[in-house]
């Protein structure tokens, strides 16, 4: 049903450059930036969650909100590079159920992060619910990373006319 749309995306100039340019700033660079964004956003979220679970108790929990600009940078970097990667292989991403699972897990992780930050700001850092949120957050991000990695192995169609091997 979406094949004409995929075909059109796959014929755009930007897509051709991303996929066919031998430059390391094209596809490889975008992929690398996506991983840096992952490290910044999820890495610092993991540090926050660990703190809430009782590690490094002399860091005031709300101190982590000072890292928010860095985390936000990681998030937006990954929104942009993620969209670019979808543009590179739209059929591959959008015909793969695992891709939607990944998006769902990311959305879940971000909502949990927002709820966690709200509770931390409200002085509820030590409550049981906050700790539970922190633990679930760790699991959800681990699952998001795993589903992201599995994208490379669960592909159904690479482009509109090429099935995956």
């Amino acid at each position, binding site marked *: 049903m979406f094949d004409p749309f995929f075909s059109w995306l796959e014929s755009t100039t930007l897509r051709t450059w991303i996929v066919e340019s031998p430059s390391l700033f094209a596809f490889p660079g975008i992929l690398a930036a996506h991983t840096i964004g992952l490290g910044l956003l999820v*890495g610092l979220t993991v540090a926050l969650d660990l703190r809430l679970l009782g590690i490094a108790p002399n860091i005031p929990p709300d101190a982590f909100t000072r890292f928010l600009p860095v985390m936000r940078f990681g998030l937006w970097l990954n929104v942009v590079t993620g969209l670019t990667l979808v543009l590179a292989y739209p059929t591959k991403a959008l015909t793969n159920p695992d891709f939607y699972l990944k998006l769902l897990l990311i959305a879940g992780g971000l909502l949990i992060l927002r709820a966690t930050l709200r509770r931390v700001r409200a002085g509820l850092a030590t409550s049981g619910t906050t700790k539970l949120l922190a633990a679930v957050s760790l699991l959800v991000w681990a699952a998001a990373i795993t589903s992201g990695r599995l994208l490379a*192995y669960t592909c159904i169609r690479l482009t509109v006319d090429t099935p995956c091997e």
Partner: protein
Amino acid sequence: MIPLQVHFEAWLRSFTGIAAFMQMKWSWPAMESAHFIGLTLLFGSIAAWDLRLVGVLKEVPVSAFHKLVPFAILGFAINMTSGFLFLVTFPEQYVYNTAFQLKMLCVIVAGLNVMLFYLTSFRRIATSGPGEQAPLLGRISGAVSLGLWGTVIICGRMITFFRPADRCHAVDVVRFLANCVVR
């Protein structure tokens, strides 16, 4: 090729059991996922620590972040283990790979940077109170560490694009820049 690398490749090839395990259907993707989860543990803990050294969050004493270090070490251990599994499965894909070599170089330099930091600035920082700026050497160490670990991630991602016999397979830094980056 440099004989040292040939010997290294041959040694890596001797782990045939691991290689057989890694070539089972889901072993490789599972270990890759572990490698990325290790990455977030390592990079997140180190980034928080480095950002504090550089000057973010001055109201928290540097020593408070020290409790996160075990998680950086855990992430590093996960990634050394999973990385070793990749290496022994397809040694020829890594040993002669410029991106992999640069990645390892950065890991080693990052390690030396940490050692230097512990030997010089750490004692002063460990006793410093909230609100104190890290000494210049500490700030430099934090910035260098952030840059190096970022480069490690980037080089790791680049390994795939430097498969031997690939168009971008480079043997030295100059040719690497000329062939692969500038184009």
